[in-house]
């Protein structure tokens, strides 16, 4: 019974998380997804702590309760993480956007029609514009410059995880140092020679 109550606590906390995020976004912080997700998670966590305290009081101290609570906490955290991933997918996922474009016509789209609506350069430039808009990138004398340290840390962490788990740094089979490779080469592909002093 104690397990079922803690499972219920995790499920209810997840529900509080989602409902709080939706309400705060609708009523107070429209357009600000990240703060509302954080508020939702904190609200759910508070609800979880409250319900776990009630379970501990109801069932009294026993050897199993810490383990059961830890399991319920992991369920809540995993559920919250999945919710954030789902929200992120709805906002920026390329796969979801392709599905949206295909859904726009009942007969689907040809590749050419899809190109007109959602080409590779459109999706990358949309992101670039978004980063410029949020000041993560600034334009200095016609050149794009990265201005956000937190974004770089997140991107580097994902790249490291990819290297550890899959042994690659990108999905396109590009050399890991392809950017600097290109930068250090002349237009005809030969390594740039720095003139000696």
């Amino acid at each position, binding site marked *: 019974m104690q*397990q*079922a109550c803690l*499972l219920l606590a*995790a499920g209810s906390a997840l529900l509080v998380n989602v409902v709080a*995020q*939706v309400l705060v*976004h*609708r009523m107070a912080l429209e357009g600000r997804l990240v703060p*509302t997700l954080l508020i939702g998670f904190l609200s759910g966590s508070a609800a979880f702590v409250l319900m776990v305290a009630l379970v501990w009081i109801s069932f009294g101290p026993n050897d199993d309760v810490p383990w059961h609570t830890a*399991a*319920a906490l*992991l*369920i809540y955290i*995993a*559920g919250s*993480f*999945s919710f954030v*991933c*789902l929200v992120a997918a*709805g*906002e*920026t996922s390329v*796969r*979801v*956007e*392709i*599905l*949206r474009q*295909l*859904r726009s016509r009942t007969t*689907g789209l040809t*590749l050419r029609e899809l190109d007109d609506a959602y080409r*590779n*350069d459109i999706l*990358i430039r949309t*992101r670039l514009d978004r980063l410029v808009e949020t000041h993560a*990138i600034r334009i200095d004398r016609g*050149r*794009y*410059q*990265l201005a*956000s340290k937190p*974004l*770089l840390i*997140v*991107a*580097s962490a*994902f790249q490291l995880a*990819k290297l550890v*788990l*899959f042994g690659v740094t*990108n*999905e*396109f089979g*590009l050399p890991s140092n*392809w*950017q*600097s490779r*290109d*930068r250090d080469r002349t237009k005809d592909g030969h390594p740039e020679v720095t003139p000696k002093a």
Partner: protein
Amino acid sequence: MLGGSLLVVTLSIFGALGGSGPDALLALALGWSLSVAFLMANTAIETDSPTQSLVLFLHAYRPEGVTDELLDAFIAEHPFRDSRLQGLVSDGLVDRQGERLVSRPAGHALLHLLDVYRQLIRRNRVTG
């Protein structure tokens, strides 16, 4: 997920979980939650995020910065759209009917779920 569920049921039958139904239920719920979270994280790590790739690209060109020509080269070397379209076809979410690409019912269901959520939070910002 199925393997994990089978393990929990087996452990429960052979008494490793004390033969307790509620313990098995908690273990199953934990296994499923972690599996879904792992699936989400794995997808995010396995495929390149266009935004993160762009960030790393700009970082690689500091302090000079990136010109539009360099950006065009980056776009040409990173066919995100085609890679994801291929993934959708492989996963059975998109069907090729002659020359046309058509979203399948599973794809519609996913979009419906996301659209309901976006309506709930009154989100109207452009996606993609």
